[in-house]
C-alpha cells in the first residue's frame, strides 16, 4: 500500500466512528432489511451493513453499493425498534464516499457534486448546467444519450431553461459553501 492509499484508508476509518456511535444500539433484528424498497438491488442487506459498521469493517462497507442504493424513503428509520437514525447513517456513508471520491461510487458522487456545484454558483440549481457538469465529469460519450429523450421532451414543454448561467452570479452561495467546508475540515482533523 502506498502512502496516499494508507492515508485515505485511515481517514475513512476515522470518519466511520461517529456513524458507528449512532447505530451502536442495533440489535440486528433485520426490520430495516425487511422494510427497504431497494434491498432487492443491494449486494448486502442493510442489517448486514450495520453489522460490518459495528465491527469497523471499512473495506467491506466501501466495496458494497448498499448505502448508495438508499433512496431515503425513511421506512427503516420509522420502523427501527431501537429508534436509530438509519437513513441519516446511510447519508453519512454517502458523504464519506463523496469526500474521499471513492471510485466505485463515481456515478452517484459526480451526479450529486455537479448538482451542488450549480447550487453553489447560482443559489438555485440550473438543470442544464448541472447536467452539463455531470456529463463532463463522467467523460462518457454515451451517458448523455441516455438522458437525451427525456431532455428533449422537457425542452418541448418549455421546462428546461436554455439561458447561459451568469458568471459571478450575485446569488452565489460560494461563501456559505466555503464556510461549511472549512468547519467540516476542522471537525475531521480533530
Amino acid at each position: 500500500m502506498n502512502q496516499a492509499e494508507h492515508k485515505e484508508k485511515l481517514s475513512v476509518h476515522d470518519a466511520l466512528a461517529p456513524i458507528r456511535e449512532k447505530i451502536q444500539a442495533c440489535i440486528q433484528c433485520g426490520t430495516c432489511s425487511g422494510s427497504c424498497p431497494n434491498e432487492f438491488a443491494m449486494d448486502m442487506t442493510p442489517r448486514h451493513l450495520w453489522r460490518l459498521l459495528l465491527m469497523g469493517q471499512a473495506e467491506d462497507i466501501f466495496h458494497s453499493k448498499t448505502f448508495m442504493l438508499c433512496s431515503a424513503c425513511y421506512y427503516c428509520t420509522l420502523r427501527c425498534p431501537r429508534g436509530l437514525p438509519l437513513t441519516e447513517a446511510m447519508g453519512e456513508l454517502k458523504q464519506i464516499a463523496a469526500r474521499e471520491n471513492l471510485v466505485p461510487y463515481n456515478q452517484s458522487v459526480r451526479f450529486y457534486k455537479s448538482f451542488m456545484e450549480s447550487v453553489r454558483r447560482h443559489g438555485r440549481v440550473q438543470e442544464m448546467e448541472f447536467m452539463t457538469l455531470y456529463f463532463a465529469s463522467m467523460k462518457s460519450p454515451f451517458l448523455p444519450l441516455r438522458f437525451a429523450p427525456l431532455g428533449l421532451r422537457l425542452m418541448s414543454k418549455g421546462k428546461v431553461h436554455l439561458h447561459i448561467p451568469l458568471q459571478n452570479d450575485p446569488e452565489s452561495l460560494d461563501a456559505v459553501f466555503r464556510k461549511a467546508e472549512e468547519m467540516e475540515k476542522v471537525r475531521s482533523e480533530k
Partner: protein
Amino acid sequence: MKYLYYPGCSLEGTAMEYNVSTRAFMQAMGHELIELKEWTCCGASAAEATSRLLSLALPALNLAIAEKTEGAKDILVPCSACYLNLKKADEKIRKDPALLNKVNLILKEKNLRLQGKARVRHLLDVISQDIGAENIRTRVKKDFSGLRIAPYYGCQCLRPYPVFDDPEMPRSMEPLIEAAGASVHHWDMGGKCCGASHINTEPEAGLELVLSILREAEGADSIVTVCPMCQMNLEAYQKKISADYGKDLSVSVLYLPQFLGLAIGLSEKDLRLDMNLAVSGGFRNKLRGKRSEVRGQRQEVAMASAA
C-alpha cells in the same frame, strides 16, 4: 389565510405546472401565498449525499429568510424533498442549540440569523387540514363521478415525521378525492418509494420501483401526486417500462392541485395540464364530460405525441 411560500428549484423548471396549479388552487380557495424573496436551493438529495453541514445550512438559510418575512408564519412547501429538508433542519435545530450556533456561523456569510420560529408545512398538510374536504366539496363545479383516482403520497411528506397522516397507511388524500366527486383507487402503493433520484444514478433499481407502482395503478384513470420527483418518475418512463414489461401500463399522472383545481372549475389552461408528460386523450375526454366513449380505456397515451 396567508402562507409564506417556498416553491423550490423543481417548481421553477421541470415541475412548473405544480407551481402554477398550487398558486391557482390556493387563490381560488381564498388563500394568499407570499413567496420568500431570494430563496435558495434546499440541498435536495445532493447535500445529504455530500455534506452534513450543508444539508442543514441550506434549508436553514431559507428558514431564516422566512423568519424575516412578514405577513405569515407557516411556510407552505409543495415539494416533498424540499419540505423534508426544511422540516428536518427545523426539528434538529430546535433540539440542539449547539447545532443552531454552528449553522448560524454559516448563515452569517449571508447576513442571516435563524432563531427557530418558523413552521414548515407540506402542501398536502395545508390542503387536508386547513382547507379540508368539506370546503372543496361546496365549491365543486364538475361531475367527476366516473373517475377513479389513485392517491400517491411518496415518502418524504410522510416519513420520518408523521405530521398530518399515518406514515405507513396514508389516507389524507381520500376525502379530498371523494369531495371532488371521484372515487378512490384503493391500493397499497400510496406510501411506497418511487426510487427518487435512482432513475438517474441507479436506473435499473429505479425503474423496478416505478414498475411496481404503475402495475398496481391498473384500473385507475389517473394517479395524483404531491411531489415533483414522484411525478416525474411516474410519468416520464411509462413507455420504456411498458415495453420492457410487455404490457401497456400507461396512466395519466396529475399533481393533486391540478386535479382539485379542475374539480372546482379552474381550466386546464389555468392549471397547465399541457405541461404534464402523461395525460391521456381518454382522460382528457373524461375530464370534459365525454364519458361514454372511453370508460375503462387505458390505451391512448398523450405521451406518444411528445416522444
